[in-house]
């Protein structure tokens, strides 16, 4: 295995992503939906429909319930009740940190994007190898590089592309907030924004690795799309609903980084570092598993 070849595969794969229908759709969905989901938050404040204090008090309850739910502290209906009464102490402190010690609207955007970006990745990164597998083009590429080099090259190319795309989206939001809203100082906005961009980059990598694993082992791009979307969106849905039947079933959430990715924004730096380590560990697991399966499969 040569790192030079991996680098070449990843470099050539980036323009190929853009020539591909799935790549165009990825950019379009990420940017258009990414901006659209932040819109209600900002419009409420900007057009004066609600005063900022009222927006923040509603957000505080919503974010604390959400953080408690993904931390598996209870079933969703119970958490909504507790959140309404103000009895979610741990999650409420966390929400207070995000909304009062950091630029609140930007933190709220981060929480929303944290729920959506894994789904965006699923709709964009599903066709890394499956299209070539379906049409047999992969056999021509394997004359020049090994399977491992091709697998890793495609992963690094897609990871770089995803990071660039997500960073551009978040940078646009940060710049918009700085230029249009007179709520926060540029310094705090840029500091929190750049930290957020970095953490989102870390968060997206395991999902790209998961998509690489699936697309290298499913012969049809459509099948790969269905499988990646079903796995990434299905795991939290199954986990949170199974929890109502039997609490330990909630641990299904840890099959993907859903279970700990929100800790990237934890006020305790140790927790945040553990979450970063978790993201890299999951990436390594998906890559090793995917590569082993891809090397053994009949092409």
């Amino acid at each position, binding site marked *: 295995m040569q790192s030079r070849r991996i680098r070449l595969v990843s470099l050539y794969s980036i323009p190929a992503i*853009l020539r591909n229908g799935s790549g165009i759709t990825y950019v379009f969905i990420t940017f258009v939906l990414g901006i659209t989901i932040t819109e209600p938050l900002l*419009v409420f404040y900007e057009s004066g429909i609600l005063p900022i204090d009222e927006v923040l008090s509603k957000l505080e309850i919503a974010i604390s319930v959400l953080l408690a739910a993904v931390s598996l502290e209870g079933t969703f209906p119970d958490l909504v009740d507790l959140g309404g009464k103000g009895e979610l102490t741990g999650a409420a402190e966390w929400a207070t940190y995000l909304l009062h010690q950091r630029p609140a609207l930007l933190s709220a955007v981060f929480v929303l994007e944290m729920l959506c970006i894994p789904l965006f990745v699923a709709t964009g990164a599903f066709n890394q190898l499956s299209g070539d597998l379906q049409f047999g083009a992969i056999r021509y590429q394997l004359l020049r590089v090994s399977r491992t080099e091709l697998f890793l090259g495609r992963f690094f190319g897609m990871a770089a592309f995803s990071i660039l795309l997500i960073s551009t989206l978040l940078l646009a939001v940060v710049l918009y907030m700085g230029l249009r809203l007179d709520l926060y100082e540029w310094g705090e906005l840029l500091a929190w924004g750049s930290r957020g961009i970095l953490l989102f980059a870390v968060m997206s990598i395991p999902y790209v690795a998961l998509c690489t694993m699936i697309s290298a082992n499913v012969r049809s791009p459509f099948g790969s799309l269905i499988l990646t979307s079903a796995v990434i969106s299905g795991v939290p849905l199954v986990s949170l609903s199974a929890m109502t039947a039997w609490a330990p079933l909630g641990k299904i959430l840890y099959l993907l980084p859903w279970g700990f990715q929100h800790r990237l924004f934890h006020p305790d730096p140790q927790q945040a570092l553990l979450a970063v380590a978790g993201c890299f560990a999951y990436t390594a697991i998906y890559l090793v598993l995917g590569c082993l399966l891809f090397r053994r499969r009949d092409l």
Partner: protein
Amino acid sequence: MATSDRPSGLTALAVINFILSFMQLLSMGSLLLARYVRAPHAVGNSHIPEGQAAQLAALAEVPTLTIVILCSLLGISGVLLFVTAFGFLHRKRRFGKHATTLYVINDLTYVACLIAMMPEAHIRGLGISLIRTVFYPIFVGTLVHTVFRRDLVR
């Protein structure tokens, strides 16, 4: 069956352009509706939230000429998007590449006119969706002149 040599990215762009061309025409209709139907009735209406009422009141005072300019630009964008979608599918230089350039110029002019001519209350209501409006023409223009520059040659 003959396989097409058109990159799937161009097909995806064509589909997106068809959808957006329809949406541009809808936006044109909604602007007319907001200015001439909703805005005059919103002034002094206590059922509408304060912020939204301010936006509609500001819209009621926009001169007809401004509305005509903005609607024309939206309409032209809609037609150009439809033409470019056709151009992408058939890999035409004139309808694909050149019409996209015209669309980019037209859409950016629309955003500039919107910011310059519409009242501040209305712009504030549009919020971050302005970024989304600017994003697509820049994205499609860049792709057509870089990634797909050798594909639109017929």
